[in-house]
């Protein structure tokens, strides 16, 4: 008797929801919305079940499901859950329903929107849970399709271009990754992450790749790196991001920044780093500079933006670059002296916490901008407003909390991750941490500028006394996110206990093959 | 003169073939011409089976396979052929083969 297939259920329940929505042709828009929300909430529910049954004292994968899929290709359907996946699944579980709520009043065809959204959600969870490259990649690419339609059909005026740019850019990157994995498969005959990681740790992976030619390991590594770097995105592969995030409908922006960008970082942690430790180590100096570029230039570019969504999009680049910065610092220090383990533990914990925290706060910020946009005829320029806090104090308060969470104010969730990243990176590459503080400063500058221009000062521009108070749905969108910001800011142990065994293992095995 | 079973079978099939051939050549009715052709096909099939059964068989199933495919092809041929007959009938109100010469170059 097999175990309860919790992970499959996690992955496929939204899928089923999409199918249900697809066939219930006569369902009214409100029914479709409620259905979508219910199916979307399934991830949170099942994720909480998984978290409750998760044994934090055990390292390695839990709830493993393994079934032969394509015998001839040695492809298996393999799902597993560890701290990292669990955190990201929970993040998806939180962000998806709120994103749906943020797009609750979508103008046309709520059913199609819901179905596509659920498909997107399903793909994201699939990416987080897959342990075999084959279906990992399927999920990875599958996520693009609904995202494309969601952006193109429900997005802003320049959505078509943004959607194409997004999809082509990302697929362009993934193509290299696919080639890389094809090479790996040809060399080793397996696509199992865990086995490949073991082989990589023994040095066998690079050896078997090198059999085809000495430059193969590097080439494959670069291919995979490119695919992931575009998705995160790593500076300077980020140019698709601002326009995409800005043009997508609010809920989709929330999902893209909250969950989809994490897929890339997840890929770095789950694939690139374990499979190519030596190669990553070799180029980590350059990558550190690129990540620093993202941190600093991303923040400074955000200062320059006048479109609020673009501004927040750039802040996403900045925040995600912290994650990569930490990872690259760890990789740079791999093989170094033993005391680096503590710093590496801090850096890696920080990365994972930052992923979760950024997911929540960036999603909340997008939701806030979306609410402004929906009330002011789609205007969201930095100079279009003023004194919003006078007419909408509660909304201003919630936005403020999200904003301060984003700039890393202690007591809110953003701080913990950033502190740990800085602590870790400083221990591994002090100069990088020092330069990265510039990013922190610039983040504060542009977010406070945003706050000052839009909410403070006398009422002007698009701000009117008729700025409607938040509706129940909007409260339901923001309040859970804000509550989470407080809870995780004060009690990070909630997440830390889930990832800690993983972190301990990672930090304890920092050596090159 | 003693004949081996194989030769007997071959003679049988030759005779059947010729019956078919004569029918096809002699009759003016297109249906019968087609049936004659069918007979010739069947004669060929008999040969396959005969060689398979009585000949030295390198591959045990080749002859049978041939017949199976041949039957399938013959079925297709019959279907198309008789559909043609009906088409001809519709055009010229009879099915005399020698009158169906409109396609001559």
């Amino acid at each position, binding site marked *: 008797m097999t175990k309860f297939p919790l992970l499959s259920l996690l992955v496929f329940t939204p899928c089923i929801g999409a199918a249900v929505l697809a066939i219930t042709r006569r369902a009214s828009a409100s029914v479709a919305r409620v259905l979508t929300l219910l199916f979307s909430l399934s991830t949170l529910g099942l994720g909480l079940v998984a978290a409750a049954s998760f044994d934090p004292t055990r390292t390695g994968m839990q709830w493993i499901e393994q079934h032969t899929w394509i015998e001839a290709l040695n492809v298996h359907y393999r799902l597993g859950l560890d701290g990292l996946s669990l955190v990201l699944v929970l993040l998806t579980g939180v962000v998806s329903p709120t994103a749906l709520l943020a797009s609750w009043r979508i103008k046309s065809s709520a059913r199609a929107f819901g179905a596509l959204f659920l498909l997107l959600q399903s793909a994201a969870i699939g990416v987080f849970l897959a342990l075999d490259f084959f279906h990992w990649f399927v999920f990875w690419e599958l996520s693009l399709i609904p995202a494309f339609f969601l952006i193109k059909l429900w997005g802003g005026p320049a959505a078509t271009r943004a959607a194409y740019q997004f999809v082509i850019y990302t697929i362009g990157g993934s193509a290299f990754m696919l080639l890389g994995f094809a090479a790996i498969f040809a060399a080793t005959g397996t696509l199992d992450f865990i086995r490949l990681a073991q082989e990589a740790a023994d040095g066998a992976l690079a050896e078997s790749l090198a059999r085809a030619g000495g430059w193969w390991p590097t080439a494959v590594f670069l291919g995979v790196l490119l695919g992931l770097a575009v998705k995160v995105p790593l500076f300077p592969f980020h140019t698709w991001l601002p326009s995409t995030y800005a043009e997508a409908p609010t809920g989709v922006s929330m999902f893209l920044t909250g969950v989809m960008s994490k897929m890339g970082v997840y890929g770095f942690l789950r694939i690139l780093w374990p499979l190519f430790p030596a190669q990553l180590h070799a180029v980590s100096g350059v990558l550190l500079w690129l990540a620093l570029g993202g941190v600093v230039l991303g923040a400074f570019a955000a200062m320059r933006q006048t479109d609020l969504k673009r501004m927040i999009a750039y802040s996403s680049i900045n925040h995600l670059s912290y994650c990569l910065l930490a990872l690259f610092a760890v990789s740079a220090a791999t093989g170094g002296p033993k005391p680096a383990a503590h710093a590496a533990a801090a850096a890696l914990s920080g990365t994972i916490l930052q992923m979760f925290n950024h997911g929540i706060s960036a999603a909340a910020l997008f939701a806030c901008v979306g609410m402004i946009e929906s009330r002011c005829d789609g205007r969201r320029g930095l100079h279009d407003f003023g004194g919003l806090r006078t007419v909408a104090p509660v909304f201003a308060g919630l936005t403020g909390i999200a904003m301060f969470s984003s700039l890393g104010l202690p007591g809110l969730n953003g701080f913990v991750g950033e502190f740990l990243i800085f602590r870790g990176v400083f221990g591994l590459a002090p100069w990088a941490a020092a330069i990265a503080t510039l990013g922190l400063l610039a983040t504060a500058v542009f977010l406070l500028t945003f706050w000052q221009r839009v909410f403070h000062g006398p009422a002007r521009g698009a701000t009117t006394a008729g700025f409607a108070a938040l509706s129940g749905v909007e409260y339901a969108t923001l309040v859970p996110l804000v509550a989470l910001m407080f809870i995780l800011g004060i009690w990070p142990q909630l997440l830390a206990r889930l990832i800690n065994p993983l972190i301990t293992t990672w930090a304890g095995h920092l050596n090159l093959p | 003169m003693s004949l081996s079973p194989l030769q007997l*079978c071959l003679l049988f099939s030759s005779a059947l073939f010729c019956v078919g051939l004569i029918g096809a050549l002699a009759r003016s009715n297109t249906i019968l011409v087609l049936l004659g052709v069918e007979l010739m096909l069947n004669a060929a099939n008999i040969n396959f089976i005969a060689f398979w059964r009585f000949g030295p068989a390198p591959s045990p199933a080749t002859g049978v396979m041939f*017949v199976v495919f041949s039957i399938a092809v013959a079925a297709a041929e019959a279907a198309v052929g008789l559909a043609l007959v009906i088409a001809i*009938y519709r055009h010229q109100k009879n099915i005399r083969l020698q009158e169906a010469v409109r396609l001559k170059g």
Partner: protein
Amino acid sequence: MSIAFLIIALVTLGSAAVAMSLRNLIHSALLLIASWAGIAAFYLWAGAEFVAFAQLLVYVGAVSMVVLFAVLLTRQSRVDMAIAPDALRRIVAALLAGGATLGVLFGAVVSAPLPIAASATPVTVSVRQMGQELMGTHAAALLIVGALLTVALLGAIILASTGREDPPGVAPPAVAPPTRKTS
């Protein structure tokens, strides 16, 4: 040589020959069907069980029906039934050609040094074996035959269809009654 074979051969040949010479098309068709059944019997006698059943299924079950339908759908008037003026010439030519072929074939068969079956126990082919052959060695051929049959089916339908836009039984497009205009 067994009597069974002789009986089968005689019945087959006889019914075929008679069928080819009868004037009544239905009778010829039925006799031909008997001839085909004889061939199936031959297959059975030769041990090709599967082929025999296939022959029955295809010829007796399917082709016969097509033939009979074709005969019934192409009913001829009395005039057409009359012997054509050049019939005799054609028959003679046919007999000559056929006779020549027969002679040549008989001569070839009798004179050719044909190899005799090496083993006393004949090869038998089980259905499973055949299936594996079909799906393995002859998979491509099987696919092609499948395509051929499909094409033949479609082709036959198109050839035999009346070509009218609306088959009988379907209502013609509704036309508004002329009285409507005046009201």
